Structure formats: C-alpha cells, structure tokens
C-alpha cells in the first residue's frame, strides 16, 4: 500500500513538474555569457557534398547576433550548428515533458518544444537535457517539410563556462532538384534526399571579449532569393 502510494505520488509529482524550468536553468547558467568568439572546423560526411574540412572564425553576441568569418567558402548548418543560449527561452515555446532517461551516464530529460508563435517559426524541437549539468546534449528538429536534423553536443570548460567543443549533426533532408527533364526510368518519381553527417569542432574560445556592433556589420551570408 505504501509502495502504491509512493508510486502514485511520484507520478503526481511528475505531472505537476514544470518542464519549462529546465530551460530556465539553462538560461540562467549562460546569462553571464554576453559574447564569445571561437575557431570552427566543419567536417562533412555527406554524399552530396564533397568538401574538405572548412575553417572559420565564429562570433556570437547575445541574444541573436552571429557572424562567420572565413577566407574561403564556408558552409555552416543553420540549425544546431552553433551555440546560442538564448534560442530556447521558455516564453517562446510550449514545453512538454516526454521522458526521463540516462544520457551518457547522467540523468537527463527529454522535452518537446513547440513554438508559441507559429507565424515566426514552425520548428518543433526535441531536446535532451543533462539535468545534472544543465546542458543541452541533443537537439532534434522534428520532421517539418520532410526535414530531419539531429545534433549531439559535447562540452568543455572555457573561462568558467561550459561551451560546446563538438557538435555532430545528422541530416536527412530532401533535395531541391532542378526543373527540367527528370529521370524517366520508371513511372512515378522518388524525391532524392541528402543524408549524412556534419561534425563541427569548436576551439580557442574567447568569452566576453566585448564584441561590438562593428563586427556584426556585413554579417549576412550570401543573400539567396
């Protein structure tokens, strides 16, 4: 009887827990990170993109300024490619608790984030958060427009802040084939997909260096229609 009561109370406790508080904890953890800059190395393991490792310098300033500086052509994943502690604010999402788990030997929770303002964004995220260290370990963007992106993050200590050292992105996205004659090998045509992995390595972090607006001028990548 006591056991049943204990179980029931645990369930009740879970049901009443605010999953959004994990996001608050992460936000609080990184509230002192005003800006950072780091060296980035991107390694592609995608069949449709044969490229050597690309290097660049990344600049970030809270809440949403980002710039990449590269002497050469540089491809950088839009989703999950860089660390933005302001991205997952509780107020922007409807947070749902999915499960508790052990991730990489540590206690973790899995949360589903649905944007509250669907006009600005319709991306649904599933986050795996290390609750012992308040670190986002996995980001999964749920299928939208047929896209699936999953990022696994590892951290290191820089200037007393735990910042990502390695992000592994798994991609499974549809291609946008050129118009014109397509393959006529059979009735019906399958849309081709781009699958593979992108490994992003961060090093040489400099945190809170006082990045000015000047740096983020001309921060736009190639404007595409």
């Amino acid at each position: 009887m006591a056991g049943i009561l204990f179980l029931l109370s645990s369930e009740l406790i879970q049901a009443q827990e605010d999953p959004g508080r994990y996001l608050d904890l992460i936000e609080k953890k990184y509230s002192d990170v005003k800006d950072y800059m780091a060296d980035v190395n991107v390694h592609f393991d995608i069949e449709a993109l044969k490229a050597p490792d690309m290097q660049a310098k990344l600049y970030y300033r809270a809440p949403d300024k980002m710039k990449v500086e590269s002497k050469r052509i540089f491809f950088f994943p839009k989703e999950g490619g860089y660390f933005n502690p302001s991205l997952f604010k509780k107020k922007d999402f409807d947070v749902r608790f999915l499960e508790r788990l052990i991730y990489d030997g540590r206690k973790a929770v899995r949360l589903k984030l649905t944007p509250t303002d669907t006009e600005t964004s319709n991306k649904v995220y599933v986050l795996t958060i290390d609750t012992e260290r308040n670190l986002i370990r996995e980001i999964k963007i749920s299928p939208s427009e047929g896209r699936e992106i999953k990022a696994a993050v590892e951290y290191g200590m820089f200037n007393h802040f735990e910042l990502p050292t390695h992000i592994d992105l798994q991609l499974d996205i549809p291609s946008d084939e050129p118009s014109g004659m397509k393959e006529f090998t059979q009735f019906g045509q399958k849309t081709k997909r781009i699958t593979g992995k992108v490994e992003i390595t961060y090093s040489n972090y400099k945190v809170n260096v006082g990045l000015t607006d000047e740096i983020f001028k001309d921060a736009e990548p190639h404007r595409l229609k």
Partner: protein
Amino acid sequence: MKLFWLETYKTFSRWRTYISFGFIALIVIMTEVVMKLSADEILYRMMRSFQKDFLIFGNVLNGWFITAFIMNSLHIHIPFFITLVAGDIVSSEATAGTMRLLLIRPPSRSKIITAKYLTTLFYTTGLVIFLALICITLGLLLFGHGDLMMNYQSKLRIVFIPEAEVPLRMLLAFTAAVWSMTVVASLAFLFSTLAENSIGPIIGTMAVVIVFLVLGNFPFDFFRMLSPYLFTTYMIFWQRFLDDPIPWQEIARSALILGLHNIGLFSIAFVVFTRKDIKS
C-alpha cells in the same frame, strides 16, 4: 616541319581565322558581365538543395567558378569555331584551285595532309587555350579568387576544390578540353578532305555534333544504350578533373576513346587524300 609552318602561316594569314578568337572573347566578356549582374540568381539556382539548411559564406562566385561555368558550354560554341578552319583547310584549296599548285610540288601528299592536320590541331589548341586565358583572367579580375565549387546537378552533388588545387586541375581540365575538341576538328578535317567546298564540311560537322549531343542526352533507355557509342558522350570528360576524387580510370578511358576517334578519322582522311584524283 617546314610544311607545318607554311600551313600555319597560311591559316593565320586569313582574317576569318581571327573571327573565332574575336567571338570567343565577345562571348566570354558578355557572359561574365551578365553573370556579374545575375550573381544572386545563379547562386540561388546552384545552392537550391542546400540553402534551406546551410548558411553559405565566402566568395562562391569567383573567377574559377565562372571559368568552369563557361567551360560547360564548351561543346556548343567551340565546335563551330573549330569547324570554320578545320572544315575549310583542305576544301578551300580545292575551291580556290590552289590544290593543283600545292600537289605538284615535291613534298608527298602524305606530308601535305599531315601538315594540314597538325595545323588544324594547332589552331584547335590555340583556340581552347585562348578561351582558358580570357576566362580565367577576366574571371579573376571581375569575380576574384576562391575555392571552386562544382555543382553536378544531375548527380545531386556539390564538390569543393580548395583553391590551392584549382590551377593544376584547371590546367588538366583544359588539356582534356583540347583533347575533346580535337575530335571535332578531326571530323571536320575529314569532311574537308571529302568535299570540294567549305560549307558542306562546316555544316556537316556541326550537324553530327548537335545530333549526337541531343541523342546522347535523351533520358530514355534506348538512347542511353546508344550513348557509349557517340563520341560526344566522352567530350565532357574534362569535368572529371574537377571532381572529388578524380576518376582517373574514367578519364583514361574517355581519352583513349577520343584518341581512337582521332586516329580513325585522320586515317580515313589520309587515305582519301593520298589517293584521290585532283580533277578540279
């Protein structure tokens, strides 16, 4: 060698030889100016598959890319300019009556036809090299330099070539392009040997090239079966030097097939010319 230089002198003494160079320069300049104005549209089309998921930085539309882009149209306009000379080099002598003067000289017909063929190849090489120089020079001036990004849309692949590797690869690619164009030159040369006027060889060669290109690109099973037997299928093997990894075996095979075409076409021209009766 003397005969070769005499033939080369004769060829380059005619203003029509320079039409080709002039038009190539014009085409390249116009293309690069238009591309400069349409840079965004070009990038959009090229990056369509990746733009939703990647931010793209750097000088993508640089001089190397422009050069590769223009080279992709190599098999359309360059063959025509090649046939202007290759299709004319033998038949024009028949039309002008100078063949009679030429063939009563001590040098044998085999030496004369060989000299003319070498001149044709020399001109073809010069034309492609000119294209390369003007593309690269103007491209780098207008668009700057950077890594080369090749978009193989039919295979849904983008290949990056680091800038340090690009010059050598471009050199190899243009060498391969020269080799490809020599087949067109050989075909026009053969037709020139068979004809008594230049219009026939020029039109005939272009007709063959265009028809073969069209047939080889139809996405139907029948034409795919036919495609390995068409020399135009191998003409774009220069692109393989801008791939990663470089498919050396495929390149060697294409080069060999094109080389065999050259040998065959010249051999027929050789036999025809050395045995034909000069009645005109």
